[in-house]
């Protein structure tokens, strides 16, 4: 296996205080190597999203250590974490979270804009990312004019436009029908296989988890099982645009 990219040691996270205090994560140890495709599963409320947000540097651990590329994330400042996010991480949300009334093009450009790229670089990058998710020709459509599957693909294009080291997807297919879900999985598989991007994905559906080469099961804020998937499902052909 290649170098360790992510290492969580005894990471906890709690919400609330006193009587209402709730331990969402009760001590997580996890190592992820570069180039892995990892599915996180588990019952609702088991802490998957909480762990994902910490992994994506959107949130900080309550205690424990998070090493990303050898950096101690838990002791970084807000701005340092933001810089980490914009250089290495791409996030795909369950609810898409695209800017409303804004074209696919501008949505995908946004991370490049914050990175300080010029207009030409941004346009080319956005076009390439949209093409790779099968949305060439849809640049000027706003989220309102796109189907759920298309919106999620715009969100994936936005996550990969910066060529990140890691793509984190929290239930990327949660809002989609089976057919669209398999298309999205095909995309993630292709990203992982062809570009060597590490993919961390939360999912409820065993069908989707089957694409991953490793499955981690959460129960009550702990990792209950961590197993390799010797025979990942093979993706259907990556989607060319279907209307």
């Amino acid at each position, binding site marked *: 296996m290649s170098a360790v990219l992510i290492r969580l040691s005894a990471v906890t996270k709690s919400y609330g205080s006193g009587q209402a205090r709730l331990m969402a994560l009760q001590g997580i140890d996890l190592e992820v190597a570069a180039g892995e495709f990892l599915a996180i599963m588990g019952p609702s409320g088991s802490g998957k999203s909480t762990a994902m947000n910490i992994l994506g540097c959107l949130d900080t651990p309550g205690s424990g250590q998070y090493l990303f590329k050898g950096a101690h994330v838990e002791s970084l400042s807000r701005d340092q974490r933001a810089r980490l996010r914009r250089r290495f991480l791409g996030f795909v949300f369950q609810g898409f979270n695209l*800017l*409303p009334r804004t074209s696919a093009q501008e949505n995908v450009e946004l991370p490049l804009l914050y990175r300080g790229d010029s207009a030409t670089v941004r346009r080319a990058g956005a076009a390439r990312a949209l093409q790779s998710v099968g949305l060439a020709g849809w640049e000027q459509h706003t989220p309102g004019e796109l189907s759920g599957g298309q919106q999620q693909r715009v969100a994936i294009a936005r996550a990969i436009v910066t060529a990140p080291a890691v793509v984190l997807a929290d239930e990327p297919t949660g809002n989609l029908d089976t057919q669209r879900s398999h298309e999205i999985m095909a995309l993630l598989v292709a990203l992982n296989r062809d570009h060597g991007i590490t993919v961390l994905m939360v999912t409820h559906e065993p069908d989707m988890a089957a694409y991953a080469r490793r499955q981690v099961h959460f129960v009550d804020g702990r990792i209950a099982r961590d197993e390799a998937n010797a025979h990942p499902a093979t993706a259907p052909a990556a989607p060319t645009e279907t209307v």
Partner: protein
Amino acid sequence: MWLNALLLALRSIRRNLLRSILTILGIVIGVGAVITMVTLGNGATLSVQQQISSLGTNLLMIRLGQRQGPGGGGGGGGGIQPFKESDVTAIQSEIGGIAAAAPEARAAVTVVGNGRNWATNVTGSTNDWFTIGNWKLASGRMFEPDEQLAGSAVCIIGETVRREIYGGAVGTLIPGAQLRIRQFSCNVVGVLVSKGQGGMGNDQDDIVVVPFHTLQRRVTGTRTVNTILVSMEPGSERTRIKASLRQLLRERRKLTDSDDDNFNVLDTQQIADALSGTTKVLTTLLGAVAAVSLLVGGIGIMNIMLVSVTERTREIGLRLAIGALGSEVLLQFLIEAVALSALGGVIGIAIATVASYALAHVMGVPYVFDSTINLLSLLFSAAIGVIFGYFPARRAAHMDPIEALRHE
């Protein structure tokens, strides 16, 4: 970073066009109202001040009649014995601190000259009348002493009468011009400098002045004096002068201790005070109305911002999640807020300038550009924008991205 923030702010304005327009509108209304009201208030105040100074503040008017307040109807005083010309001389000679005194009588007439008619008032008085009323000659001359004594057919006309009858350039006197007043024709010997609108909104220049005896003999046919105008020397004690005037006239009119005054002494200072009191009330009222509209505008903006704050908070969370720094997001929102409110302020100023110019014209008050209120309104609108647009964004930008994303 600045350029990017500007680009993002512009995109955000375009994306939320309706919200942006409503924000601008709120500020336009607030700023426009305040500037218009204050400008008109200033104009009205200035106009009143001009009227007061054209009236002269050292003037006393003595009229027939019982206890009339300022602005009470003309000296009807039916049945009350009129003043005599000798009263005027007595006032001048017996009371100290008097600069000039003049009898006055008026009649409504239609004058004819140069083939045109004009309905106006003819006033009969002496040369002192011009001094007391602050009148200056634009051209020509005053009455000669013998003209005054003999009641000659001469007249001096106001600017309005000159314009309506003779036309031509302001203040010019056509040599040998004749004016027909009822039965007699008189030589126009002088034209008065225009004084504009009077304190009651009347046209002071709509006037023809003839020697007092001329009016008595050729127009009214009586020897009565209805009004006496008195001007005091600057700095003299007006209470003392008014008291001695009253005393003198009571004696001359043979009023006993039990009789009430059958004349009254009107002080222009009182009229001036009443007028400036009125404009003060007016300005306060305008200010209050303007403040209300500013408040309404402010509440409108606050409303819009509150409604959009949920969406904005999530938007900020998203921007932070995909790599924006808190400061970058803030800068974008600051630029957006300031741009919108400054634009609103500028449009408001433009509209207010046009509106107050037009309204000042309609109301007949001068247009006075007040740079202070324009600047203040602009700053105020920028401040509103910053407060209502920027501070909610600041709160959101200091949240953890995930917290902002989850905001409901």
